[in-house]
């Protein structure tokens, strides 16, 4: 039966029987993946239900400890993560095809950085960006061009340029488009992302479809190329970059900019009415997100040493979005978790490899229905807590704005 179908398939094409097989295969796959997804959802629901009830305002498990203890725990946690490569042999963690350490450097770090950056745009400021891969590509190609294609700069010199160029592109893209409403902004950013990819593919200056190769790597401190020690060193660099970005973001969250984003995201009209210069802050979000995206791309290029335009397509953009949504919109730790999950899980569970995007598409749908706030929500308390935060932010902002009068918060 299979043989003749194969022959027929060659001559004719897809048909009702193949459609049926497709549905059966899909159903089998869904069964397996669905169990996994159901387990994840059940876990998070159980976590919420069975975690000890706290009175509002009462100290939690960690925040109740004295400062010295908290600092010690933080330092220990950070040290443990730095030493993560030591555990790469563990059967639970071990990935089959790609060495865990290489995966960490070439995939996990870029994805976590990307998720952090996209989280600023989508999660903190509430701007749906479907072309985020464009900034990733800009960072990567800038480094590629400067270290290999048209110059021979060292990576260390090229990567800040990559960040700056990405930031400028972000401003360039954002300035004319951030006045658009959410859905239209999403589509226009999609268009930009595709324009960037197609330009990389069409311009010989950028290597056309052959891409850019022989990109320089970060400084190797004398380690042998492609040795395990070198990879461990790169992991240290990558993790340090992540920590720097996390620190920067935590400063941002508590600043006027962060409060403006909260206010804009919850009720843009109210913010505008209160005199918050929404456009300026949206542009900031875009620019910062672009810069972080460029940073990630620059690091990624340095790890891979060869980049192709096909690696920066719309599916990647959606993958990035899935990472942020899965982890938790607006929560930087959620972004870290989501970025790690999206980079690591497909490798760990290789059987889903070809169907990777089916899984991510379904994850998006399921998450949006059952847990739209993601695995690590922005703050406990759901929508009303978000709304309250928006009101509080607006109130605080209006006190700082010259001449603004308090009209009254939104419902």
């Amino acid at each position, binding site marked *: 039966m299979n043989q003749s179908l194969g022959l027929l398939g060659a001559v004719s094409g897809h048909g009702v029987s193949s459609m049926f097989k497709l549905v059966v295969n899909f159903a089998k796959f869904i069964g397996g993946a669905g169990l996994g997804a159901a387990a994840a959802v059940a876990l998070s629901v159980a976590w919420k239900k069975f975690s000890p009830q706290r009175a509002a305002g009462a100290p939690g498990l960690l925040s109740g400890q004295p400062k010295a203890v908290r600092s010690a725990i933080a330092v220990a946690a950070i040290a443990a993560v730095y030493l993560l490569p030591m555990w790469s042999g563990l059967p639970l963690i071990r990935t089959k095809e790609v060495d865990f350490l290489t995966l960490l450097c070439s995939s996990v770090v870029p994805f976590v950085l990307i998720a952090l950056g996209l989280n600023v745009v989508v999660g903190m400021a509430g701007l749906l960006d479907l072309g985020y891969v464009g900034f990733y590509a800009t960072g990567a190609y800038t480094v590629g061009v400067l270290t290999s294609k048209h110059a021979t700069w060292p990576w260390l010199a090229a990567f800040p340029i990559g960040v700056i160029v990405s930031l400028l592109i972000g401003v360039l893209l954002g300035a004319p488009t951030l006045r658009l409403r959410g859905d239209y902004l999403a589509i226009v950013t999609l268009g930009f992302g*595709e324009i960037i990819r197609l330009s990389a*593919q069409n311009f010989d200056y950028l290597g056309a479809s052959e891409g850019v190769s022989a990109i320089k790597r970060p400084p190797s401190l004398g380690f042998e190329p492609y040795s395990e020690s070198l990879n461990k060193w790169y992991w240290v660099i990558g993790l340090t970059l992540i920590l720097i970005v996390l620190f920067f973001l935590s400063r941002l969250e508590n600043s006027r900019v962060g409060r403006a984003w909260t206010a804009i995201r919850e009720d843009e009209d109210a913010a505008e009415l209160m005199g918050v210069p929404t456009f300026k802050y949206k542009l900031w979000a875009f620019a910062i997100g672009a810069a972080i995206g460029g940073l990630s791309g620059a690091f990624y290029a340095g790890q891979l040493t060869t980049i192709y335009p096909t690696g920066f397509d719309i599916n990647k953009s959606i993958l990035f979005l899935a990472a942020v949504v899965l982890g938790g919109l607006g929560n930087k730790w959620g972004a870290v978790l989501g970025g790690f999950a999206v980079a690591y899980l497909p490798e760990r569970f290789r059987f889903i490899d070809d169907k990777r*995007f089916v899984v991510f598409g379904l994850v998006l749908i399921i998450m949006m229905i059952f847990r739209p706030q993601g695995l690590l929500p922005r703050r406990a308390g759901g929508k009303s807590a978000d709304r309250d935060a928006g009101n509080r932010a607006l109130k605080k902002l209006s006190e700082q704005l010259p001449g603004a009068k308090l009209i009254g918060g939104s419902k």
Partner: protein
Amino acid sequence: MHFKVFLDTFWPNTIDGLSLGAIYALIALGYTLVYGVLRLINFANSEVFMIGTFGASSALWLLGIRTESIKTGPALIGVLVLMFVFSLLFSIATALALEFVAYRPLRRRNAPRLVFLITAIGASLAISESVGAFGSKKRDTYAFPRVWNTRAKIFSIGAGDVQVRNLVTVVGAILMMIALYAFVNKTRLGRGMRAVAQDSETARILGVNVNQVILLTFLIGGIMAGGAAFLYFLYYESTRYSVGFLLGVKSFTAAVLGGIGNITGALLGGLLLGLVENYGSALLGGKWKDVVAFAVLVLVLMVRPSGLLGEKLGRARA
């Protein structure tokens, strides 16, 4: 800029552009209607279209047609009708599944706009990748047997040949649009759609069954996409899992170009985009064709988001 190439290929590009534009217009209707009624960009409309193309091929397979076998007369009409119906059925099924599985649960939870968009994207990805991962030919192109000599030349204009397929596509699209226009403007259900698009709360109070209207909107969007799939199938005689994305984005561009929510706008936008795309690729080189389309998208949204014929329903600017 290759002006000479542009002039030499003007007529072939015009003919091809109008044909393709007609297909864009039909898919654009799916976007424009759903946006008008729900204020939602139904990203997954592109996959509704793609599944429809597989519907047409299933019809051929069902009839036992495996190799080229040109039909004429009543046999041809029969085959075409079956293909058309199957395209419609597959597309409608997908569109309705989307509404029930993905969108309705969100509406019940009063989800914010962002959530709908993310779901739409997820659905689009899930559907196209499913076909790519589970289909018999995976990510290769499925080529189909020819049953009608659609590439026969009817007449020429300048250097361009107007083939059967060009005429069929444009005429077919226009016929479907006339039917749609009549439905929306002359029937009670159509009035319900227009009412909900204008003000769903008031419509509800006045007795319009909003859920029914929403279902109807997805149904019609599916019909239009199915029709487009049938015409696409006749035009290209092949399909693959990824045909949806590019056509979808370009059709959405057409919808916005003409004015979202506006049926005539969808036709105008589609035809215009088809022409501009082809002329652009002649002037700049074939590899820039898609960039031209995306550039049109970006420019329209930046400069005139209400489109050429103005937005009948809904506003573009925040």
